[in-house]
């Protein structure tokens, strides 16, 4: 019994109250193992005596995982690039378009009121997901990259002066390097980069020393998409605030995989992408503290973000609308809300716990393959790695590796620089291969990967 996107019966008339539409579908939903945790636990009870792992249970909600590619079962190990979407999220998107698609914030009529409600509800869900105190601190963007650009152009251009310093690490994703390069060129600010220590993690001591009165912004990742290491954001925020600097957290690889509490972290800005957390592409968000957003000038201009428009000037709306010009990705935002629900139903602590175990298993089995070099820190008591491994095999180009794995074994990994060219340059390699997991992967997936990897290595070795 797999959770598939079911074709909903066509309703000719919509019931007057918004809630009833949802309740009509809830009956169907409980049959798909997707949403309610109660149904999940029901599955466990009726299963065999052996406890079924989260991965096995969750897989049922992801139809895309049950296919063959190139004659082998698909083993999807590229969730750090983009995650797969459960049936519930797809349903939410479909439902929006089928039943209440309408432009938001503008109309008076029933459909548009409903769409607006659901859109704003999604905003609240995202706020709740990261424990923001107010949903007005969530700005919907196209993705995390756009969110960072928003901060760079809006906050950066009006706050950075010549000689001001922005601290980054060499391990940042391009989206958290390039916008700062552009803005620093325009403002005369200086970029400083924290390098790695011998554990192949960004050097925290170096970071601490770099922070000075000249520092205006520290923009760093929470979890690295290559090294699998995490940064102690809470401490970094304390150090930064001591000198009056702001902190922007790139949480693309953390929000989908663990509890992220922006109030606890006390970060000034935080960005994430929907498509990495079981949501659709085309939507992401910026979290910004209210007082910061209030002081920021607009990023893009147009409808929605204005208050009054005259020919020679306009006045602007309050945040978050101020930063949401034009018609938003309404369906996508609602589907992102559904993704937040889906993940919360399982429970982020549970997901994280499962992934920590899987991460260890991946690292250990991968490290046991001869000639494999994994980047990033070794997992230990004090160091927890994310469930991904970027690696190289001695004498084998990652592209060859990934191609063969895909062609002969149906294993999908990524090869390249993973949008972290400076990091690869720092590590002294052109490219690396990367296998990344999510809660719908299982131990068997890792086993299949390792077997396939061994076969690949021996194939290419026979040609040496």
């Amino acid at each position: 019994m797999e959770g598939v996107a079911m074709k909903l019966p066509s309703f000719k008339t919509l019931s007057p109250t918004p809630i009833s539409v949802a309740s009509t579908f809830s009956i169907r939903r409980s049959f798909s193992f997707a949403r309610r945790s109660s149904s999940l636990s029901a599955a466990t009870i009726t299963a065999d005596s052996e406890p079924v792992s989260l991965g096995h249970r969750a897989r049922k909600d992801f139809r895309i995982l049950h296919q063959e590619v190139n004659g082998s079962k698909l083993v999807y190990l590229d969730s750090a690039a983009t995650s797969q979407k459960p049936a519930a999220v797809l349903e939410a998107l479909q439902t929006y378009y089928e039943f209440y698609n309408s432009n938001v914030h503008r109309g008076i009529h029933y459909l548009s009121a409903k769409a607006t409600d659901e859109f704003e509800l999604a905003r609240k869900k995202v706020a709740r997901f990261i424990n923001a105190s107010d949903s007005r601190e969530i700005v919907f963007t196209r993705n995390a990259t756009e969110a960072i650009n928003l901060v760079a152009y809006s906050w950066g251009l009006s706050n950075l002066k010549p000689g001001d310093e922005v601290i980054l690490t060499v391990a940042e994703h391009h989206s958290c390097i390039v916008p700062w390069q552009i803005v620093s060129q325009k403002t005369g600010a200086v970029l400083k980069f924290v390098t790695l220590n011998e554990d192949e993690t960004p050097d925290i001591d170096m970071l601490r020393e770099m922070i000075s009165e000249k520092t205006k912004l520290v923009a760093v990742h929470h979890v690295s998409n290559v090294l699998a290491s995490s940064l102690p954001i809470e401490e970094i925020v304390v150090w930064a605030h001591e000198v009056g600097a702001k902190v922007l957290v790139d949480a693309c690889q953390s929000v989908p995989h663990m509890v992220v509490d922006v109030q606890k972290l006390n970060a000034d800005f935080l960005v994430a992408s929907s498509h990495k957390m079981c949501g659709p592409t085309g939507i992401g968000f910026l979290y910004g503290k209210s007082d910061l957003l209030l002081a920021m000038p607009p990023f893009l201009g147009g409808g929605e973000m204005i208050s009054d428009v005259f020919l020679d000037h306009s006045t602007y709306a309050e945040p978050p609308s101020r930063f949401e010009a034009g018609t938003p990705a309404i369906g996508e935002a609602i589907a992102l809300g559904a993704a937040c629900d889906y993940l919360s139903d399982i429970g982020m602590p549970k997901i994280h716990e499962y992934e920590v175990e899987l991460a260890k298993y991946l690292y250990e089995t991968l490290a046991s393959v001869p000639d494999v070099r994994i980047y990033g820190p070794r997992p230990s008591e004090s160091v927890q790695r994310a469930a991904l491994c970027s690696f190289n095999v001695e004498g084998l180009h990652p592209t060859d590796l990934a191609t063969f794995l895909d062609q002969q074994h149906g294993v999908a990994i990524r090869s390249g620089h993973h949008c972290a060219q400076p990091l690869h340059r720092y590590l002294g390699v052109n490219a690396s291969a990367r296998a990344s997991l999510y809660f719908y992967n299982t131990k068997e997936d890792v086993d299949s990967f390792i077997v396939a990897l061994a076969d690949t290595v021996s194939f290419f070795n026979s040609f040496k």
Partner: protein
Amino acid sequence: MAASISSSCCVSSLRLIPFKRTFFSSVNPPSKNLILRPIPSFLRTIVTFQKIPTGIVSPLPASSSPSSSVDLQPIEELPPKLQEIVKLFQSVQEPKAKYEQLLFYGKNLKPLDSRFKTRENKVEGCVSQVWVRAFFDEERNVVYEADSDSVLTKGLAALLVNGLSGRPVTEILRVTPDFAVLLGLQQSLTPSRNNGFLNMLKLMQKKALSLEVKAEEGTSESTTDEASVVEVDLESKPPSVVEVEESESVSNVVALGSRGMRIREKLEKELNPVELEVEDVSYQHAGHAAVRGSAGADGETHFNLRVVSDAFQGKSLVKRHRMVYDLLQEELQSGLHALSIVAKTPAEV
């Protein structure tokens, strides 16, 4: 159904059609029997297939469009060695064996000296690094050398090198990427920058063309019975990769500037041509170093000339070109960088 590698990182992608799906299931039984013979080692496979004369492998009927309705370039239009390679790959059905064949080619590829691993020789759009070098042999056939740090890409490069090396420019330019489909290596043929294989072929063709253009301009450096080599102060700085558009036949009509007008006048006056075409193609070369540094940087640096005149009667090609250059000496010394000349007599047209 196989998901393509996302374009956020460029990849030289290589796909194989799984055995069941291949449209060469219509291949005659003799080849099939060949495949089913137990093959003890990888190397043996390769050696076996190399011994097969092309007679056994049934040649594809001309312009066969099997399952797809796409019209592929007929195999006969390919250079002979490339045809052989295509047929060889067609005879190898099993995907893994195709890989082995590919790797074997790559292994036997002559290594490229590191001094040729320059930016100009690098193939764009590959995460793996690929370099291609091209030069003329004595008979003005193009010789290629290539290298890559990825063995699969090296295999593909070797395919192209083996298939295209030693052939004249026109033949090389005629090759379309269609043959990649015939190989059964399901190379994505979308001309995006992510396509390493396509870009390799394009670069090789571009280099072949630029060799030809250079040779036309500077007249042949080869020792012919024309003892006198025209001394033209053209390539004082060697041009970098010629920025030729994909379809070389595209001619953007550019109004002639002052130099273009002067050239036209001079040639008309001195050669009394029946036909005269002066085309300013400087924009195609706007990138490379010589243009940027040229004095008299009015941007008019490269021209295509087509002259039909009785004045060329009885003169060799070299002598005709020399005549034109002599007439345009002044321009050549004041910023005109290169000419591509077609010089004919009225009878030859």
